């Protein structure tokens, strides 16, 4: 067939498109992690494992209990948002003033707790919610509609977050607290309240990502390990706390992985991505967008 993509390497184009689609979900997670870091000044090492929890919520409610999928997804978003608030209240709030290494260890401990708790509840089997969305044909190019949906929803989530941060009082307070946390009290802002709202939003973003990933991947207790390090790399590359930088970095990394996977292999593409990461850490240690 004489397609519009004639003369181009169709498979390369497919890889590029898949890279963009993959970047959407990674960008969403990077936004959540950067938000938490920028506002609360804590790194949630267990962030990817909150996503894992959300995927299990969907699996349990939809595949086990037979809830409608949209309702199960909504429950996952609300549930992980609540989990985010719990993480803050039980783990972060008591050690807010302590050394960063203690905070890393505490949220790192949460990672092992969540992974083993999930193993206890569900075992180590790979589970799939069993939803098969059709493959879309665009000329000669095949695109998974699950990925397309995930990309679209990730963008919707990012835009919703942006509007929330720009248009509401509490959103303005969230942006302000990241710039000068000692002085926001003088504006009538209760720091503890802002931290709770931020933790809930960070959790909700992880819950949304869980919905989008559950459509494409199996869930198992260690699924967070497959993309957790990637999200951290993206956040550091974009400059920790820099939400726009993280957003851009997500698409750079996803392209490297996708195109690298096409020319070589997926494993090598990860090696490439982390190599670039190390090089950029020397060249632009404070983030790619820092002037």
């Amino acid at each position, binding site marked *: 067939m004489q397609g519009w993509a004639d003369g181009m390497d169709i498979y390369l184009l497919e890889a590029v498109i898949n890279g963009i689609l993959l970047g959407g979900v990674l960008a969403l997670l990077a936004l959540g992690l950067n938000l938490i870091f920028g506002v609360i000044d804590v790194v949630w090492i267990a962030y990817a494992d909150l996503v894992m929890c959300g995927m299990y919520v969907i699996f349990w409610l939809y595949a086990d209990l037979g809830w409608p999928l949209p309702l199960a997804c909504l429950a996952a978003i609300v549930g992980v948002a609540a989990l985010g608030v719990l993480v803050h209240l039980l783990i972060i709030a008591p050690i807010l003033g302590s050394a960063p290494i203690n905070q890393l260890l505490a949220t790192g401990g949460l990672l092992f707790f969540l992974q083993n708790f999930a193993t206890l509840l569900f075992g180590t089997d790979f589970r799939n919610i069993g939803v098969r969305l059709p493959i879309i044909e665009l000329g000669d190019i095949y695109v998974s509609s699950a990925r397309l949906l995930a990309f679209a929803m990730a963008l919707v989530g990012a835009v919703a977050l942006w509007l929330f941060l720009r248009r509401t009082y509490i959103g303005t307070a969230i942006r302000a607290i990241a710039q000068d946390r000692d002085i926001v*009290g003088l504006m009538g802002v209760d720091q503890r309240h802002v931290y709770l709202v931020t933790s809930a939003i960070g959790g909700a973003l992880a819950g949304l990502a869980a919905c989008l990933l559950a459509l494409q991947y199996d869930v198992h207790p260690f699924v967070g390990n497959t993309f957790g390090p990637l999200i951290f790399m993206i956040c550091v590359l974009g400059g920790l706390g820099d939400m726009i930088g993280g957003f851009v970095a997500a698409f750079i990394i996803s392209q490297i992985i996708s195109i690298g996977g096409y020319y070589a292999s997926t494993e090598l593409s990860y090696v490439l991505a982390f190599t670039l990461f190390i090089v950029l850490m020397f060249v632009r240690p404070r983030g790619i967008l820092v002037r």
Partner: protein
Amino acid sequence: MSALLALDAVSAGYGSFRALFDVSLEVAQGQAVGVIGPNGAGKTTLMRVISGLLPLRGGAMTLDGRAVGGLAAHRMVEQGIAHVPENRRLFPRLTVEDNLRIGAFIPQARKHFAGQLARVYELFPRLKERRDQAAGTLSGGEQQMCAIGRALMSRPKILLMDEPSAGLAPLVVAQVFELVRRIRAEGLTVLIVEQNVQQVLDVVDRAYLLEVGSIRLAGSAAELKGNDFIRKAYMGL
């Protein structure tokens, strides 16, 4: 006339260091009161105690007859105290208008946001011109306008100003005191802390001299201007 803000034998400090000893002062409704004194006298500590950034260790504080001592900073704003901190402390990457918006964070101020914003822009037209600019890009004088405007957005009963002239060029300092006069003309009650003794005594009704954490002298601006000790030690006359 009973005092709008009254401090009775207030003490405060950091760790084992005591910065304020039994400080008592009063600010009447509609008055402008100055607190002068050398570096390290406890002027900024006094402001931080009144606005709730630093806890009260002893003594009492009333606003409009209600005991407010020991409330957290965000509760003090709800009570009607607005604090323009030392060095302005704007949110540099937020726009001017977002800085003003966050000044109106408390529920009773949000209701009046549009009207109060118009009032602040009327008071400081320059801020309206720069409303979409990041606050960090403003000049020193404009930043002071923005910091005062941000405090006014909460519709306070009393405005605390901590060293509004600090770090500004002499010409800009004169402009800042002009701003203080403009705010006074609005009928707002002001408590202002300054090292710039000569100029602050020109804009306030009464003043206190704070030295090593204690009130050493108090009186009307005219009395203090005529006081030999103040003239020698603080005005270089």
